[in-house]
Structure formats: C-alpha cells, structure tokens
C-alpha cells in the first residue's frame, strides 16, 4: 500500500490553476434540503468540506470528474468545466 492521502495524491498531479472558481454551491439549499451531505464523502478529490456549518469548496484540486454534479440530488451545486486550458492536465490518464 502506498498510504498516500488524497491531498498528497493530488499534489503529484499536474494542474493549470484557474483563479476563478468553476464550482459554486447554493448554501441555502444545502442548509434547508440536504439530508446526507453526499458531496463530503463521494468527491474523489475531497474538494468539499464543512466549515462552521457552511459548505466550503476548494476548487483547485478538482479532477473534473462530475461525480458531485450527479450525486447531489438537491441540485445545490453549480458546476462547470474550468475555462479552456485550465484545471487538471492528465499526463497519462
């Protein structure tokens, strides 16, 4: 086992960092309607975390897989691809 944490694995990847976030969450929907906080555990890049009851997003590590978009049945996540050329750059894939 390699025993690397998710942030350690992400740090091996290559990214072209886009300053403007491509993920936004509707905190109102999260607070009022979300039962299971699926984004917190399902995101393979651990982009989502909870800070003082609010959902925080660290878009920099996003793998652009789209899992959160599919999994959030409350549709609280406004998720787009980063601008052309930005984001994850797979060297192997």
């Amino acid at each position, binding site marked *: 086992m*390699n025993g690397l944490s998710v942030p350690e694995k992400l740090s091996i990847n290559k990214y072209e960092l886009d300053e403007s976030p491509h993920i936004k969450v509707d905190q109102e929907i999260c607070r009022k309607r979300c039962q299971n906080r699926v984004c917190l*555990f399902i995101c393979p890049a*651990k982009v989502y975390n909870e800070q003082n009851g609010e959902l925080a997003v660290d878009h920099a590590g996003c793998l652009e897989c789209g*899992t959160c978009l*599919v999994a959030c049945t409350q549709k609280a996540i406004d998720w787009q691809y980063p601008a*052309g*050329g930005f984001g*994850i750059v797979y060297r*192997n*894939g």
Partner: protein
Amino acid sequence: MSDYDAIVVGAGPAGLAAAYRLAKAGAEVLVIERGSYPGAKNLSGGLLFGRILRELIPEFPQEAPLERHINRYILTFMTKDSTFNLDFKGQGFSQEPHNGYSVLRAKFDRWLGEKAEEAGATLITNIKVDSLLMENNVVKGIVAGEEEMTANVVIAADGVLSFLAEQAGLRDRYNPANFAVGVKELIGLDRTTLEERFGLTGNEGTEYAMLGYPTKGVSGGAFFYTNADSISVGLVMHIDHTSSHQVSPSEVLEDFLAHPAIAPLIRGGKVLEYGAHVVPEGGYNALQKLFTDGLLVVGDAAGLGSNNGFTVRGMDLAIASGIYAADTILEAKAKGDFSAATLASYKKKLEDSFVLKDMKTYAGAAAFMKGDRLFNAYPKLVEGIFTSIYTQQSTPKENLLKSVLKARKESGVTYMSLGSDVWKAVKNL
C-alpha cells in the same frame, strides 16, 4: 454558408474518430477541445478493444502508443480474507490481430488527434465550447467566449456529462442510478519487476476484474491492468449505491490497495497519477436521444457505455459511434439536407452494428449488478466453500456437499435467490 461541414466538440476517441473519418473523405471539419491537448482531461481503466479502430485505421497497432496487448483475463471474487480467481489465458489473444490493448489516454488520444490532423481535420485546443448556436430549434454551430462558428452539423462528443446534448434538449439532468464514479491510480513499476511479477513476456499484458470486497459491497468492481512499465488500478462504483452506502471512493480505493492480495502486486511501485471520472452505466435502457436537426451525439455523451461487471467498455463504442456519425454526415452532405429526418440514419447504423446490439445484450446487467448478493453474499459463499475444502483439521473432513450446504447457510444466500440470480446472470451477462 456554414464555416464547416462539421464541428466536433471534444477530442476524445468518439470525436476524433468522427473527425478522422470526415477529413479522410474530404469534408471540412473542426475539432474543439477544452484541454491543452487531446486526452489531457480523459481517463479510463485502459483496456481498448481493437476491432473497430482497426477498421478505421488499419495501421494503428504499429503506430499508436499502446502499452501491452492483453492475453490473460482474470476474474476475482474477493472478500476481506480471501480471493477466488477465474484465470483465462488465450494464446489466440497473443496473435495479431490482438483482441485488446492497455492504453493510457493522455498518450492514446493525443496520437489519435495527430492522425485526425494528418487526415486534414483542424484541431483547436484550450478552448471550451460554452453553448450551441441555435436558430428555431435547429443547431447551427457553437459559441465559445465571444466567438461563434457555424457548421452544417455539430457533433457533441463532449463526454459523459454532455452539457451540449442537455442544452439541445436531448437528455435529462443526471439520474445517479445511471452513472458510476471511476477512481484510478497509475502506479509506476520498472519493466523487469513488472514482467517478473506478472509472468509477462514481451508485450503481453494481464487484465484483472475484481468483485466484492474491492468496492465494499457497493455495486461495481475493481480493475487492474498492466502497462509497459506501470499498473492502472482503480474502482468503478455506481453513484446511487455509493451515496446510499455512504462510502468514500478514495478511501475504499486505499483499503483495496492494502488488501493482502493486492499490496504485493504493487509493492515498490510509485504513484504517478491519481484521477477520477464519471462513467455512463445506465446501459441500453437509459439511452437518450441521439440526434436532432443539425446535431449528432456520440460516445459517452450519448450514454454509449457497457459494463457487465467484468469489463467496463466505452472506448470502442465511442470510436464506432464516431465513425457512424461521420458516415451519416457524409450522406447528409451528398443530399444537402442536415435535418433530423436525414440524420436519423445514424441511429439505424448504431442499431445495425455491434454498438447497440451488444448494449441490448447486456441491457439487464446494470440492474443485475445492483443486486447486493453479487457483491456481498456470493464472494462470502465462495470463500466458505473453498475454506472448507482446503482446511485440514484433526476431525474427519465433511464431504463436499455438506461443506457447500454449510457455506451457503453462513453466507445467507437462499436457494430461491441463488436460483433466480443464476438465471438472471445467464440471461443478462
């Protein structure tokens, strides 16, 4: 007059196959890719079935950056403490034309992009298409930033999330039951160690599909492929099941890599890359509309994926759909009619080909795989039977039938469900 005969959005295997075919036939084609090169955004487990690509580009085995040809397929039922393998090595798979190859997409897609350019297609990278250009519900082109470009037909080859097909009203928003999340690690291992460890000669390679413990009972499975000097390893887990089981794919992957049967296979390896991607898993029954006036949808964007539990398959279906889309556009061009009525022959071509035939064959697989028993009870059952057969104790051995009966009882599998699952498996897989 349109700027192009066709604009292809997305330089994955689906879009590039279409572009190659169109350009070869002399059509004006533009491919737009948001990544900095084809493949920069793309991920797969990595087993490419070669048959259809051979029809498109016969010289590909000599030219494409292929890792290894796969001639050994191992299916593993795994519990926390045991593994049961069905191990198939086909000497026929060692001969040209090879059945399948392991590939790495950043390399493979890039090569396919070069082939499309050589054939005469124009490829622009680093540009994200924002939307379709529509006029009275007819697709006229694309919008990217301030730019508008027109085409007789747009091909939406923009992958599993296809925002373009959605904008055109061809698909619903995502139903978690129809998608899986794939997580993957690429582990570098020097060539000699790799070949010794897996018993490989030359360019031979091995594929493993693993069920049960790898996904912690969530429907899906693990894959494991040998590359030239690395290993592709990962999980595919249905999103609805992952949500309801409340498990984290990245943590499940870590546990899988630490399993006593897996850890020695990757020992000494170095993580080279970590990635994830959604996979279309709804199969035939979840297919959405494939065309409208001025638009064709190909590959993952159209939901053309097939997973029967043993193989995740999408690349060859993507390539095939790209070919049929291109052929349809060439026919439409000859007629000078790009309406839905003409483009409908794309669907017909898919239906007549292995693409929709195979997907139809496995139409029940997605639902069958969601049955919990396949991932929990059966691996336990197999474990029970073989533990009993091979365990030597001071007490006399029970006969095989007794062991099986006892293991069945302990696994919680009922005769009724066993019978019905065997029937379903025979029917669906």
